[in-house]
């Protein structure tokens, strides 16, 4: 029997992990898959036309080639950065959506002003 099975929370980690923890691990997994994408493409193919590809790499698809030799610690750091970025994006988007939401009809005359 594994030690982690003695803890209810760890045994049910798929349900009990916090949103932040899940976001971090999911970001690390995304980075791992991106690194394997870099592993799947032979950079020698792009060697001859390197500059041309670099100019047209608008989507950043080819930049993941740099991740092909990344180690676990680099992937963890990249995952943390990606997670924080997604969190900031979510908070920002929520703020914008909240600000754009129209006031309730019954509260039309009471315009809420928050400082």
């Amino acid at each position, binding site marked *: 029997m594994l030690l982690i099975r003695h803890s209810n929370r*760890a045994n049910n980690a798929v349900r009990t*992990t916090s949103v932040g923890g*899940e976001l971090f691990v999911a970001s690390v997994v995304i980075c*791992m*898959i991106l690194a394997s*994408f870099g592993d*799947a493409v032979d950079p020698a193919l792009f060697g001859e036309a390197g500059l041309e590809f670099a100019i047209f790499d608008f989507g950043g698809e080819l930049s993941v080639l740099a991740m092909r030799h990344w*180690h676990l610690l680099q992937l963890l750091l990249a995952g943390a950065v990606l997670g924080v970025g997604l969190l900031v994006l979510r908070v920002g988007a929520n703020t914008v959506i909240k600000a754009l939401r129209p006031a309730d009809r019954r509260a039309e005359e009471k315009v809420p002003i928050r400082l």
Partner: protein
Amino acid sequence: MELDFLSAGFVSALFAIVLIDLVLAGDNALIIGLVARNLPKNTQRKVIFWGTFGAIAVRAVMAILVVYILDLPGFMLAGGLALVWIARKLLTPEEQGAENHLVKGPATSFAGALRTIVIADAVMGVDNVLAIGGAATGNVLLIVLGLAISVPIIVWGSQLVIRLVDRFPSVVLLGGAVLAWTGYSMVVREPLLASWFEGHPATRLVAAILIFSISLAPWYTARMAEQTKPLVVILPGVLVWMLAFEVVASVWTLQMDYLRATETGEYMLEAARWLGWLPLIAGYLWARERLMLRRAQAARS
């Protein structure tokens, strides 16, 4: 792969080994307690000492063996696939109070107790040693360090590990992801497949997605709605279908590129490759629906 001492690669592999040691640590204290509970006090003390010593010795022998075994052709692939199963099992919640199948009951003699403890540790430690062997990439120093970390966990660290994973359950998820990553790197390092992967570089990405989608299925399934749960089987199934066509094309040297297809047979093969999985999925969904209806009817009656 050669790793310089304290280089980024070395520290990363060491971190992976520590994480694997934490999440795959077995409960030796429980086994020893169960086995030795009916023995006299004096013999109990001896069983605790020699049982722990035996567990450590077995772990060391297995760690040495795994280095040599993983060098044999085919074993890296088998080890990688085993790690996928181990990661999946790690993330699947177990019922609390499940019986310990490794120990039938308390032992009646010192030799019997020792034998049970050593066998139980060997069975519990196989996944741990295999994962460490895969993460260490054949580096003996890393394997020794992995062993040096797992021994204190066996002897004293159980409460610390339980407290850590109870406070941060995400460590278990991260452990599952690292096991899947180690499994993927073992599969692509397999000497028998190395030249095939060189010739089919895109299949590495397919293999990575396949391995992650199967290993981490218990995690994302817990977050999915009932209607979308068939995707857990369908998506890896489609990837296996595509991968199988690549393998078949390599074995029988068939023309699989639709841009180069010239004969009717080649076009038929292309059609089977891109559309052949549709009737299979329809059949799976139909069978699943029938099974669920039958279960619901049985529950009602």
